[in-house]
């Protein structure tokens, strides 16, 4: 089936078997191997990508069902791999083997937006908002990304650092 995916800003038209997942289309057909396959069943988050700005598990999605969609993978988060979030991961030792990192980065990018949009989480005291990114909030919101090396302290520190910076900017702008 002819399917057009816009990945990291570039349109690609592929001829795909309907069985091909979005993850396999990205990795095997477009050779964007940043997104990882951990479990292939929605249980680990290694395959997290952004579709129209929202995070999803690419392994539980058919590529043909994403015809026309705008997809961002870890390769598209920055030109040089040195976005503030990416550098914060390096600075805070947010990885060991690095297998879960692309998924963590995509997921964290979306978490920051979800918090900004005021989405509550399971641990939010109130549903009324506004949402603030405490350590507990972050752990809950990032629970869909498992790190087998258990680098959670570094991962959390990196994301909190970026969240604080953006709040500082927002406050300075007010």
């Amino acid at each position, binding site marked *: *089936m002819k399917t057009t995916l816009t990945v990291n800003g570039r349109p690609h038209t592929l001829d795909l*078997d*309907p*069985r091909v*997942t979005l993850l396999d289309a990205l990795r095997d057909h477009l050779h964007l191997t940043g997104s990882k396959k951990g479990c*292939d*069943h*929605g249980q680990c*988050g290694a395959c*997290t990508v952004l579709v129209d700005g*929202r*995070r*999803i*598990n690419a392994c*539980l*999605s*058919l590529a*043909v*069902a994403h*015809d026309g969609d705008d997809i961002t993978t870890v390769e598209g988060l920055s030109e040089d791999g040195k976005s503030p979030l990416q550098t914060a991961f390096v600075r805070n030792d947010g990885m060991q083997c690095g297998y879960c990192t692309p998924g963590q980065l995509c*997921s964290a990018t*979306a*978490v920051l937006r*979800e918090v900004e*949009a*005021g*989405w*509550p*989480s*399971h641990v*939010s005291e109130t*549903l*009324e908002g506004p949402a603030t990114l405490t350590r507990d909030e972050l*752990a*809950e*919101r*990032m*629970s*869909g*990304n498992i790190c087998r090396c258990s680098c959670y302290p570094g991962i959390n520190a990196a994301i909190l650092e970026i969240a604080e910076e953006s709040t500082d900017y927002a406050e300075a702008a007010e």
Partner: protein
Amino acid sequence: MRPFDYQRAEDTAAARTASRAGATILAGGTNLLDLMKLEVMAPERVVDISRLGLNRITEKDGGLHIGATVTNSDLAADMRIRRDYPVLSRALLAGASGQLRNKATTGGNLLQRTRCPYFYDTGTACNKRTPGEGCAAIGGELRNHAILGTSEHCVALHPSDMAVAMRALDAMVEVEGEDGTRREVALDDFYRLPGDRPDIETTLAPGDLITGVTLPAPLEGRQQYRKVRDRASYAFALVSIAAIVRMEDGRIADATLAFGGIGTRPWRDPEMETLLKGERPSAALFAKAADVLMRHAAVHPGLEFKLTLVTRLLSATLEEMTE
């Protein structure tokens, strides 16, 4: 995964026609694709309904109409749901992960299949997967299994959190039938008990399409969803409770309670609710309510812990909500 034909439906009529001809409906795909990879489900045709425009939440008769493809994220974050139906927001937020909730839909969540490991393992017997094959769960390892509504053929749980909150809210499932007429079905008439055909989980007929869920006007009182699980997040419920409680002069005026993790479908017990009505809250009353709830429990070895867990969760929730 077995090969299949993929079709994207342009309107609900096309989806119904395809479904009537044997196609399996694909919404978010987070459950269907999981099961297709394992060949627990192996449809020859799949019809994608994700772009039918069923993704809106609109006001209806003082309540809300939720389109079938509204995502679990959008539903949980909707201001009207957060304000007037907080138990539903809470239940959704307690389920799955941020990534999954972005894909999971209202209709798909209602129809998600059980997480019984024997249903997932095609190397073992399962009446839900292959009718008449037997049930390896009964007499096997039990943990995320039901103690209410079971039969000698099946002890599989309905795993949804969302559906438990909807059960407490008296939500109605809106179904478009084969001929295009719409009907509304209460959740207790929607989910079947397993009996001797655990493979038939709902009263939907071939060609039926869920187009939405209707919530009646908001209820007065406090609302809460509590979920106990093996880890703090990203896990299915061992036991959960959706509670709506209204107090009047120190007495329980109304207590609406639905349970997850114990029943073969989202569970409600009118007899228990009647027992609580008009009473002053006390530990003895809550214990009696738990006894009533558990009066027909069929507890297979390995599931004894659920009796304690449900009793404690019910007491703790009611204690807090009747303060």
